[in-house]
């Protein structure tokens, strides 16, 4: 059986950052990712990031991805691509369906001293009549198609949801040559930053507030050809008689994300429900360690936020894992982690950030309450 100090599931910003930190400390690290390329969602983020200069504001997500990959390579982090973790088993065994050269697969078991779960999040769906027809997809999927694979998801797109993902992807779809024929939002207020909304409004995209999609109608091959929208009342119920038919061959749904938690569920980690973070999440402490000793989480897998917070949480998990393997001195590790927690506080500012700052405090407090003091802290306090 292959043995590793640290096995990380997911090569997105959280996983890569965790890998870099653990590897810098001298740990033997393996990152596993099911995609053909590492970087998670970073490579489809062709836009510049917001935030402070400490977090590379003004840098495009894809460039951050390149920097992380280079750093990972320089630090000797091993990455298995096209490989899926199919289960975490008793005794810290990680079962992987490993992708081989000739598209073949092989099931390999790895014995991991520490496991970091950085599996990210998945898109929520909205169910309406015809929601399974070809042409209906998540906004994230549409973004991957244009920015990573360079394929247009359709000619005429209806975007559902006005959060930042809905707004940014609408703009990028236009840049890719698609026609965004409508942006539909059930709430009476734009969900994302006004600056993004203004940009697409200026570009001429009709924005339908207090509206929802009630049906996607297919053509003779079942592919979407028309989308029926309608106004909604205060209880988000469609008002009959307000239906409009829009010609479109693609519906992109930007209805938020939920943490990908199957692996932490399999390990019976202690969970909590947190609406701010997108649903059920594994509890963790300030080391990003779950209720199961030696199993850490980072990034969207423990609460949907953004690439920068994922990156910082990944760093903490990587440092904490190395610390628990006695690869970093406690004092140095604590200083590093404290500095990152301070940076995270800066990231969790502003109208969107503050909710997450207090939600994170709730999660950390609940961990202490349900699971107790982290091992490392007990040791430090004697």
């Amino acid at each position: 059986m292959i043995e590793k100090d640290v096995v990380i599931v997911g090569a997105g910003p959280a996983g890569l950052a965790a890998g870099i930190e653990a590897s810098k400390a001298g740990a033997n690290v393996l990152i596993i990712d099911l995609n053909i390329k590492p970087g998670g969602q970073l490579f489809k983020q062709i836009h510049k990031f917001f935030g402070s200069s400490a977090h590379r504001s003004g840098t495009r997500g894809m460039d951050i991805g390149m920097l992380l990959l280079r750093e990972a390579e320089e630090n000797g982090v091993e990455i298995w691509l096209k490989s899926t973790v199919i289960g975490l088993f008793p005794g810290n065994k990680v079962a992987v369906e490993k992708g081989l050269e000739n598209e073949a697969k092989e099931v390999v078991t790895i014995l991991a001293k520490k496991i970091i779960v950085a599996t990210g999040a998945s898109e929520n769906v909205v169910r309406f009549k015809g929601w399974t027809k070809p042409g209906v997809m998540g906004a994230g999927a549409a973004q991957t198609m244009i920015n990573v694979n360079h394929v247009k998801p359709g000619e005429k797109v209806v975007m559902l949801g006005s959060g930042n993902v809905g707004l940014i992807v609408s703009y990028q779809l236009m840049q890719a040559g698609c026609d965004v024929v409508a942006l539909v939002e059930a709430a009476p207020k734009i969900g994302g930053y006004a600056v993004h909304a203004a940009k697409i409004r200026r570009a001429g995209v009709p924005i339908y507030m207090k509206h929802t999609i009630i049906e996607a109608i297919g053509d003779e091959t079942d592919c979407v050809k028309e989308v029926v929208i309608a106004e909604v009342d205060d209880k988000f119920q469609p008002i009959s008689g307000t239906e409009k038919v829009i010609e479109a061959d693609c519906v992109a749904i930007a209805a938020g994300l939920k943490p990908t938690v199957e692996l932490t569920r399999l390990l019976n980690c202690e969970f909590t429900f947190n609406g701010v973070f997108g649903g059920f999440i594994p509890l963790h402490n300030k080391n990003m360690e779950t209720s199961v000793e030696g199993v850490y989480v980072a990034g969207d897998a423990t609460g949907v936020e953004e690439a920068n917070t994922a990156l910082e949480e990944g760093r903490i998990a990587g440092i904490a894992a190395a610390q628990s393997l006695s690869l970093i001195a406690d004092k140095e590790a604590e200083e590093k982690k404290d500095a990152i927690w301070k940076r995270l506080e800066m990231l969790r500012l502003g109208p969107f950030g503050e909710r997450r700052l207090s939600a994170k405090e709730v999660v950390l407090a609940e961990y202490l309450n349900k699971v107790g003091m982290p091992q490392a802290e007990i040791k430090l306090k004697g």
Partner: protein
Amino acid sequence: MKAYDVVVIGAGAIGTSVAYHLCEKGYEVALIDHGDIANGSSSHCDAVALICDKQPGLDTQMGAASIALYKELAAKFSYDFEFDQKGCLYVCETESEYEAASAYANRQAQDGYDMSMVDAKTLAEMEPYLAKDLIGGIWTPGDAAMSPYKVCFAFTEEAKKLGLKVYTYCSIQKILLGEKNQVEGIETDQGTIYTKKIINCAGVWAPDVGKMAGIEIPIQPRKGMNLISEKTKRIVWHKILEFGYMMSKFDDINFKRNVSPLVEEYNVAFNIEYTNDSNILLGGYRGFRGFDARSEIEAMKAIAERGMRFFPCLKDINCIRSYAGVRPFVVDHLPIVSDVEAVPGFYIAAGHEGDGICLSPITGKIMAQVVAGEKTEFDISKLKFSRFEKNVL
């Protein structure tokens, strides 16, 4: 809380059947479980009632009677538990296995059971996707499959019509005993229940209940594990097992299969069935891991490897998950269906290991006969609890 004639502890395949058969005799019965109905081993198992995996004699006799009873109940109950008498094939890899299987089948046929040998050609006709190099097998047309948890619900629902009272999520705290050590009642977290008779049908948890009455019940948890495939076209029509399964079940140390170290280590024996929902259930592994019923990756691999040996086309079918449960293991492979002399009014119906689903109806029927002081359908002296008390001496 009130008083009952009999309190049955454990709402699995055994307890629900015992409760039903007691209600049928006119007793006022309460059924208690610390969880829900079919919450334990009975929902973490496979789904068959076979005689072709039984040892000749009482074991087979009870199996056959139980299947006959299942057939009767399937016709009688309004609750459908998906009873399907699809027959069972026991397949042999080698000439020596075939010889042993022939001797076994002949013995069973002499005892009057419908069991016969089929050759390689017939095997291929009956199951075209089976590996072509198999020698032959035992064909038992009467063997059956059913939904194990629906069996529990069927017994419970039918018994409720006869007045059964069910207490789920009810924990037993103490068994009340009188001056002569006789059963007086049970203290639970939902109050005290008065009764003169308790039937311990708690399966792997039966020893805990036994302790409350001051007796040691030698049942150990033995883990069993299966794989489930994605929904797929039909590739298997009968229940099929490898003859080595019987050897695995009864730990025949003289028997050695030509298998990989992994299959050997995990004592994996192939068995397969096709479910009503178009998934394939592939087994199986048995091992002692205490109450830890988590899946083990090596056992999963070994089950898949063994499955592909018998059904090569399985390599193109995806496994979607695995599950494990704990079976109540007794060292002599016979259940305990018995009164307990030291504690008047205390009875045990537990320890069926992997045969609880199969032997559920007949166990319920016999236990009800024991409680009523009637002559039992078979001589069940071999199932007496006193066989262990003697061992202690």
